[in-house]
């Protein structure tokens, strides 16, 4: 196992899906079963990524492998290079992407059966896998941006896959555009980075920052750069205030939701933040933490009242992504990535499970029409339940480990900086999560069926669909990450697999607890691993148990409440809802974000564009046309000898030329004596002139 093998493997992982995409797209019309080629390709990619991960983790656990080639060059100093950065995070992420993508491919074979654009669907999945792998593998911010846009494209295509449905087409457009807002910020961030460091490569940028080169020579601009880059993540990871696209994106086929809008693409934002972690200042991290906190909290409250099974999961996804972002904000780098991975599995499982249910219910998504499916679909139920437990943070699941870690970090952060708000919100969200997840589980799978007709026809899904569910559910068990079911701290995932974060920002811009020993930092020159201060280690240690118990307490509280409300019906939910009607509506209507954006930004934009067009056609065109003759002559020209057209500014000029015209015509009377009089007058005027 050498580095070049890893690089070749990465190449294969990156480019094979393109092959799949092109072949499937071009031959899709001709060969009905060409989708199998795409599935086959993905299987290979999956295997390759396993080999890659295995090779990297066992042979080069501490190395960063980079490879680049020059894409094009303009001057001696300016060349755009594309390349790979293969570290442990890369290979783990690649594995996650490949696995989920592979499973979704299998799942889709059955789920999408009978669709008229069946092959096209698989082609798009190939395109997505390619783009996502690109994001994961890249060593430079510009290449990340490129693939970033490409996943946007595949997301657009897949959300709008059933484009005959207006809502689907709208959702695709919305997703792309909202993402572009974030991308715009990211682009500006990239511009600042390039201007300052004349390179796009992460390593070189970090090295320069370590050497003290800052954008516009100021800490402030470093923070701004971090925040701008993070804007990309806000868009892609559907963070507040750009979270509105994700629930709408559920218009896409459910396997797509599982792959793109739960496990991988939306996590790309978090992945980006992890990649740029090294240049985030304390201010930027604070910003990130706040965004994360809001994104964790707001969607959680919305998820409480949603009735569409996928919408609940979508809001849950936003909320969980908020967790990860918040974790990064408070410095819990490892736990953020850990949660990313665990969340990818259990959320993908949940989505695929919901897909299974929807498939069984003949595209019924409203949970109020379900119920009692536990008996009809035992395997789906079991996997769904395990994943729900994981997302709620119940011990023995992977979710418990990662969420607990994040909560502990917020506790430690609170104790070190005094900002306890993150811990409080974190716990609150943990409870809400448990509640709405089990509300979902109970309403969908327990109780009596509400729509008997559909219930009768419901059936367990075929093997290609249940197999992925099973795999993912199994991966939601703690054992894959750590031997200790209550703490991941010492597990191989956190100690062996994830690299310690590097921070390169000047010490003065860091949180106190992230200050590093200056001497040691200097000796490392650019590869400064973060040296969490001793207080931080201590604080983490002492926060571990309180956080664990509190989170467990709140999670169980949430679950019990859900059962009380919906299973045992001890509380009349309708009455409760009626008593908090405004709040309920507020949540049901998603805090009116869409309406607010529609009324302000969208309407504003369209209004502006209308005004601009009016301005263009009436004023600009008018003025330019109006230069004396033009309008008038144009009107003559058009056969409309309308000399007295009067509308506005334009026609002042027109009037002028009309005046001249009339004057000239008055003079040309046809009477020769008049002419002579005029000549004599002119001669007299000449005398005065001379």
């Amino acid at each position, binding site marked *: 196992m050498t580095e070049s093998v890893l690089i070749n493997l990465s190449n294969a992982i990156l480019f094979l899906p393109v092959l799949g995409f092109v072949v499937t797209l071009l031959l899709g019309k001709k060969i009905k079963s060409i989708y199998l080629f795409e599935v086959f390709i993905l299987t290979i990619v999956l295997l390759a990524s396993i080999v890659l991960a295995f090779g990297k983790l066992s042979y080069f656990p501490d190395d960063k492998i980079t490879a680049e080639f020059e894409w094009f060059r303009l001057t001696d100093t300016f060349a755009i290079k594309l390349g790979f950065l293969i570290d442990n995070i890369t290979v783990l992420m690649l594995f996650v992407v490949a696995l989920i993508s592979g499973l979704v491919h299998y799942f889709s074979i059955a789920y999408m059966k009978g669709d008229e654009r069946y092959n096209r669907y698989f082609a798009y999945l190939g395109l997505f896998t390619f783009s996502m792998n690109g994001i994961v593998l890249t060593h430079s911010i510009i290449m990340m941006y490129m693939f970033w846009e490409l996943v946007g494209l595949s997301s657009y295509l897949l959300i709008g896959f059933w484009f005959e449905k207006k809502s689907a087409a709208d959702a695709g457009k919305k997703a792309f555009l909202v993402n572009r807002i974030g991308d715009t910020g990211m682009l500006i961030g990239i511009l600042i980075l390039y201007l300052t460091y004349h390179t796009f490569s992460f390593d070189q940028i970090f090295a320069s920052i370590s050497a003290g080169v800052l954008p516009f020579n100021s800490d402030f601009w470093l923070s701004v750069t971090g925040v701008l880059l993070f804007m990309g993540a806000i868009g892609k990871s559907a963070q507040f205030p750009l979270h509105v696209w994700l629930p709408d994106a559920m218009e896409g086929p459910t396997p797509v939701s599982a792959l793109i809008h739960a496990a991988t693409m939306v996590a790309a934002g978090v992945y980006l933040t992890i990649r740029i972690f090294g240049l985030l200042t304390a201010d930027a991290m604070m910003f990130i933490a706040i965004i994360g906190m809001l994104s964790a909290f707001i969607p959680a409250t919305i998820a409480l009242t949603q009735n569409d099974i996928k919408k609940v999961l979508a809001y849950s996804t936003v909320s969980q992504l908020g967790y990860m972002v918040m974790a990064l904000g408070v410095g819990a780098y490892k736990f953020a990535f850990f949660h990313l991975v665990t969340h990818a599995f259990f959320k993908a499982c949940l989505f695929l499970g919901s897909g299974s249910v929807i498939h069984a219910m003949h595209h019924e998504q409203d949970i109020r029409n379900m119920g009692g499916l536990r008996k009809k679909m035992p395997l789906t139920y079991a996997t769904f339940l395990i994943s729900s437990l994981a997302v709620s943070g119940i011990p023995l699941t992977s979710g418990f480990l990662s969420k607990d870690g994040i909560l502990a970090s917020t506790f430690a952060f609170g104790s070190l900086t005094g900002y306890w708000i993150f811990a409080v919100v974190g716990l609150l969200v943990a409870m809400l999560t448990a509640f709405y997840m089990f509300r979902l589980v109970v309403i969908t799978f327990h109780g009596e069926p509400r729509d008997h007709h559909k219930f009768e026809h419901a059936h367990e899904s075929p093997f290609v669909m249940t197999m992925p569910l099973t795999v993912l559910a199994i991966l939601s068990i703690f054992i894959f990450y750590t031997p200790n079911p209550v703490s991941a701290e010492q597990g191989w995932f956190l100690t062996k697999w994830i690299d310690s974060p590097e921070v390169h920002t000047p010490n003065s811009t860091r949180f106190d607890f992230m200050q590093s020993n200056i001497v040691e930092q200097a000796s490392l020159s650019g590869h400064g691993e973060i040296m969490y201060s001793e207080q931080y280690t201590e604080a983490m240690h002492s926060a571990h148990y309180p956080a664990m118990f509190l989170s467990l307490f709140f999670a169980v509280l949430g679950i019990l409440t859900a059962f009380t409300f919906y299973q045992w019906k001890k509380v009349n939910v309708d009455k409760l809802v009626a008593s908090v009607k405004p709040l309920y509506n507020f949540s049901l209507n998603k805090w009116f974000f869409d309406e607010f954006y529609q009324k302000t930004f969208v309407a504003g934009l369209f209004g502006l564009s209308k005004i601009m067009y009016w301005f263009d056609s009436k004023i600009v065109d008018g003025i330019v046309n109006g230069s004396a003759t033009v309008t008038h002559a144009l009107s003559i020209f058009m056969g409309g000898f309308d000399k007295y057209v009067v509308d506005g500014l334009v026609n002042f000029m027109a009037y002028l030329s009309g005046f001249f015209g009339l004057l000239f015509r008055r003079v040309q009377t046809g009477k020769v*004596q008049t002419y002579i009089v005029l000549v*004599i007058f002119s001669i007299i005027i000449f005398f005065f002139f001379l």
Partner: protein
Amino acid sequence: MEVGLNHFLVVSTLLFSMGIYAIVTRKNAILVLMGIELILNSANINFIAFSRFGNFGLQGHLIALFVIVLAAAEAAIALAIVLNIYKTLSTVNIDEIDNLKD
């Protein structure tokens, strides 16, 4: 009172002005033509007067002769044209001859 150059000039200027006046005000084409003749003759008076008082030899007189000949030719042509107009329009009122205009 001795008649000097200035007297001639006053006469010629008066003739010129009357000529212009006639051209501008008369409606009858013939009268307009007579105004033109007046202008030419005012110039002739000038030529001869300058020649006489300015010691320019006979040059002025010669010029006057040329102009008289030319005036005659002009008159002949003008009358022919007016005649033609009268034939086609049955009028010589130049106010009514204004079909060509903007």
